[in-house]
């Protein structure tokens, strides 16, 4: 469903937020924050600058271990602003603590219910302002769309009883079927996910030294999980890894890579495999300035199409914790070079979960 963005609505919310701060009263209002993105897109064939997204985030504890998070995005699509419910979920940090409070030794099982960006790989769960680069690599955009793949359902999380951090995440989802989603998939002609989805991710991490940590994830997504014909299903397997220094700022660095292999058929055709990957590195030259480099590819789907090879250079000028300029220059074989400029700002106590 597309809802025309009402400027009045935004003004009203902004006014309400400001009023809350000024009143200095004890309230039980949710934390409200606003994140804006101004993007400029320059290539030989296209030159545009726009307010590409305003995200409103509402966060509130409902119960000591139960938190509700709602993210509403106002995107600019083909010249029109559209309002989209990006995520709306209730996060039970410890489901059994709520269901059986007397069970003191219950295993900690977390649950997320609602609409959520699917926890597959490192980039899809991130909101656009959290991404390390302005534009995602070709493989991620192809598999999950420009705005990322979100669906409605349930995810259960549990930490495995191992000496290292190892969290198992299992999800059962129904894809969002609003026009925006369908249109987006038609536009990028990427992988389409039908009906029910099942996801699994094993997220692991180990401290390599007192200042460096290695994370890796094993991911699986089964699309159209309830279809009777196997050709109607989609299989996605991904491996991701990240090696990073702890602190941000000067001399901070991280290296991140993801590899995807998917098997799917177009419009009920026989299924074919497709692979894609990227590797990126970001280094902090100063406390405020970071540089990044990313290379990636998206392979052919079976024998169709051409392999896409991309290289991107990134510069980030951090003004505050929530405000930054990004510049990304992207080269792609047989395509125009692309210059992306982005200004991201945040207002309010916005904080995303550890992921």
């Amino acid at each position, binding site marked *: 469903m597309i809802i025309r963005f009402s400027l009045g609505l935004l003004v009203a919310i902004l006014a309400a937020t400001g009023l809350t701060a000024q009143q200095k009263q004890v309230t039980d209002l949710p934390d409200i924050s606003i994140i804006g993105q101004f993007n400029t897109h320059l290539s030989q064939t296209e030159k545009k600058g726009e307010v590409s997204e305003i995200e409103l985030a509402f966060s509130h504890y409902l119960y000591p271990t139960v938190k509700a998070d709602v993210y509403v995005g106002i995107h600019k699509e083909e010249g029109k602003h559209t309002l989209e419910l990006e995520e709306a979920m209730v996060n039970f940090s410890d489901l059994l603590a709520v269901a059986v409070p007397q069970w003191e030794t219950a295993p900690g099982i*977390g649950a997320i219910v609602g609409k959520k960006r699917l926890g597959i790989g490192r980039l899809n769960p991130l909101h656009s302002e959290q991404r390390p680069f302005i534009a995602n690599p070709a493989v991620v955009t192809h598999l999950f769309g420009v705005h990322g793949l979100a669906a409605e359902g349930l995810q259960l999380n549990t930490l495995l009883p191992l000496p290292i*951090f190892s969290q198992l995440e299992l999800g059962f989802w129904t894809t969002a079927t609003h026009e925006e989603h369908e249109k987006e998939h038609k536009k990028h002609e990427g992988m389409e996910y039908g009906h029910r989805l099942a996801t699994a991710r094993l997220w692991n991490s180990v401290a390599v030294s007192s200042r460096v940590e290695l*994370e890796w994830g094993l991911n699986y997504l089964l699309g159209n999980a309830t279809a009777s014909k196997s050709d109607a299903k989609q299989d996605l397997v991904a491996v991701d890894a990240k090696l990073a220094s702890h602190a941000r700022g000067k001399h901070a660095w991280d290296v991140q890579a993801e590899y995807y292999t998917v098997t799917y058929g177009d419009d009920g055709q026989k299924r074919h495999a497709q692979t894609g990957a990227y590797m990126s590195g970001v280094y902090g030259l*100063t406390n405020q300035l970071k540089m990044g480099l990313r290379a990636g590819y998206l392979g052919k789907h079976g024998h169709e199409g051409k392999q896409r090879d991309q290289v991107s250079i990134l510069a980030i000028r951090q003004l505050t914790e929530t405000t930054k300029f990004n510049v990304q220059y992207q080269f792609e074989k047989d395509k125009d070079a692309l210059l992306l400029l982005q200004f991201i700002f945040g207002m309010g*106590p916005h904080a995303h979960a550890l992921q």
Partner: protein
Amino acid sequence: MRMRYSSLVIALFTTVAIQHTAIKAAPLTVVAATSDLAAITDAVVQNTDTRIMTLVKGPVNMHAINPRPSMVMHVRKADVLIRIGMQQDSWLDGVIQVARNRNVMPQQPGYLDASDAIEPLDVPTHSIDGSMGDVHLQGNPHYLLDPRNGARVAAAIANRLVVLDPSQAAVYHANAAQFKRDINQRYTEWLAFRQRAQVGVFVTYHSTWRYLLHAFDLKSLGELEPLPGIPPTTRHLAAMYTKAQAQTQPVTIVTARYYPARAGETYSRRIGGKAHVLSPTVAEPTKAGYLALFDTLLGTLLP
């Protein structure tokens, strides 16, 4: 048959008794967000079997911390989690959520926001926004640089440990009281040292040292940052230069180790003052380390 039942009952009772003893005897694990909090905790848990783990070691800008999954493993094992609070370690919220440790969830006895024990400085008296820089809504969070706040936090930690481990209540209370006496004695000595020293005025890169200057009645001319979290600008440095020129006392520039040193060094050369790059954090997360922090700072700043 009856004998067999009796043996079973005795065995069960023994098992339960052993388990109970084991549970009671299990030492507490305290997870401290920073080395400074770990040092103060060390003062409170002396002569007990309570264990301390630290999430962020050494001098690090707390705004620049990336929460890591390995932190989850520490928080997961914690009986008590002690945090700085005042939005200084808000990254810890995500770690607590993933750790799913009921002991240390907010509002639980094992969750301690140390800032609740102190009287904060620089609490905004009106609405704040980004035009004022990175102002903390609840005040300046560098409160452990006033040693008296260290004693207050130690008392709060002791009170919390007593709830969770009443068997060692007397030790925790005695340790916190001894730490307070040690702090008071050293504070008197530090004040006497301050009186004897040739004290000038101070310019700091950021308001990191606000509590230290306040505790020892040291005069600040201001910060090199025009606003909290905003890098020094030429115009602001020129204004600070004019301020320094008007001083008859020597001007000393202090920069925390995790901030750029160059601005302070350049400024000090211009005004003919001394520049120091210092760690505002304990070198060792121990009781002695916390006291030594002030010996080092005052010894450097008050020649």
